[in-house]
């Protein structure tokens, strides 16, 4: 008990010795800010040591200066032009021309055609589903780029500066995480499953769940979150969900374009099992997003799973 109190006081006083991850801190002789300052000074000296020509008409520096002045003027002109454009646009908050047959059909017959009470979900996952398909592949592409840049493949390439702050054994964080993580997960799943009925959907629900997994990983260490999502699970879930998304949507595109009979029915509006493909697609997208967010976090933190 006494120990706990001591630790609590130390924690309140921000005593670094009580924080975990001190082994890494010991390697760093003084805080990063000063190191950077020193580094910068050293660099500046080296740059100064190089011979600097007069700023003449032909020198690189002169043109750089002209360039930046020109760019500043361009930005200022752009701001003025854009603002004067905005002044001529239709008035804010008024009923305007963009309310046309497009929006009319979305609102009036959206429910009948897609089965989604949430019109926006109906638009992004049914009427304009091709955009959304592209969008989830943007995320996939970003994930691959992050893997390219940050994944560590060989054991000799270890990042040293990573664990400056490690909160894995912080008591307050652990206790509060214990309470909040289930709520976060339940909320995320709720948002995910009700995407066609209320605000939310695959992307937002997936982001909430992903954040929950990250919180788990911060509070209880990577072994806890690793038990939930290992590299194998990560790969399987991402690939299966994306492939399902691609195949399901291709089916509906193909039947739609060729005027074939589709087996997908909108269902009864307002019920959880309605909205045709929207619910399964939301689940697939949610899984991809949750895995992607967590995967990116691991890449930034450690470089591997």
């Amino acid at each position, binding site marked *: 008990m006494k120990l706990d109190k001591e630790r609590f006081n130390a924690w309140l006083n921000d005593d670094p010795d009580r924080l975990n991850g001190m082994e890494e801190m010991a390697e760093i002789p003084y805080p990063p800010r000063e190191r950077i300052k020193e580094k910068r000074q050293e660099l500046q000296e080296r740059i100064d040591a190089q011979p600097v020509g007069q700023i003449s008409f032909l020198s690189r520096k002169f043109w750089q200066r002209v360039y930046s002045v020109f760019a500043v003027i361009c930005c200022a002109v752009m701001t003025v032009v854009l603002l004067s454009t905005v002044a001529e646009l239709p008035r804010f908050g008024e009923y305007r021309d963009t309310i046309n047959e497009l929006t009319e059909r979305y609102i009036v017959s959206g429910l009948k055609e897609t089965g989604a009470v949430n019109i926006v979900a109906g638009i*992004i996952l049914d009427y304009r589903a091709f955009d959304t398909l592209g969008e989830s592949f943007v995320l996939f592409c970003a994930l691959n780029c992050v893997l390219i840049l940050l994944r560590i493949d060989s054991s000799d390439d270890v990042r040293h500066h990573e664990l400056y702050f490690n909160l894995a054994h912080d008591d307050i964080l652990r206790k509060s995480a214990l309470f909040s993580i289930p709520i976060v997960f339940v909320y995320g799943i709720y948002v995910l499953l009700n995407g066609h009925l209320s605000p939310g959907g695959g992307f937002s629900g997936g982001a909430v769940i992903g954040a929950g997994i990250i919180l788990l990983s911060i509070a209880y260490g990577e072994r806890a979150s690793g038990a939930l999502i290992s590299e194998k699970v990560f790969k399987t879930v991402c690939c299966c969900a994306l492939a399902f998304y691609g195949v399901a949507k291709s089916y509906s595109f193909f039947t739609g374009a060729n005027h074939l009979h589709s087996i997908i029915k909108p269902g009864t*509006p307002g019920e959880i099992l309605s909205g045709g493909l929207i619910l399964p697609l939301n689940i697939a997208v949610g899984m991809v997003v949750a895995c992607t967010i967590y995967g990116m976090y691991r890449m930034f933190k450690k470089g591997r799973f």
Partner: protein
Amino acid sequence: MKGLLANYEEAAAIILFCIGFSTLLFHRNMLKKIIGLNIMDTGLYLFLASMGYIDGARAPILTDVNAINMADYINPVPSALVLTGIVVSVSVTAITLSLTVRLYSKYRTLNLDEIYAIARRTEKEEF
């Protein structure tokens, strides 16, 4: 000027866009560039959202299925576009941040000018 005041939300969005754009263009620090990128995108989404807004109308989630009145709801298309756009900007942010991590671990600075200076010096060694 009167038009600007009437369209105050769009004007604010455009000002945000321009702030973000110039930050992305002029700041030499990678992190500030990324912040600029996010401000720019947020400005665009604010612009979209304010474009779809109609005074007194609700979000496009149908409450009474039997009596759908067009005038009750805001324009749902900009909201759908914002949703698509947000994911794109998240992805771009992730990539630029990981590039920053790589650059920092290689050159130990976030300032692009300094990185160029170091890179130019080591250029001849690394072909």
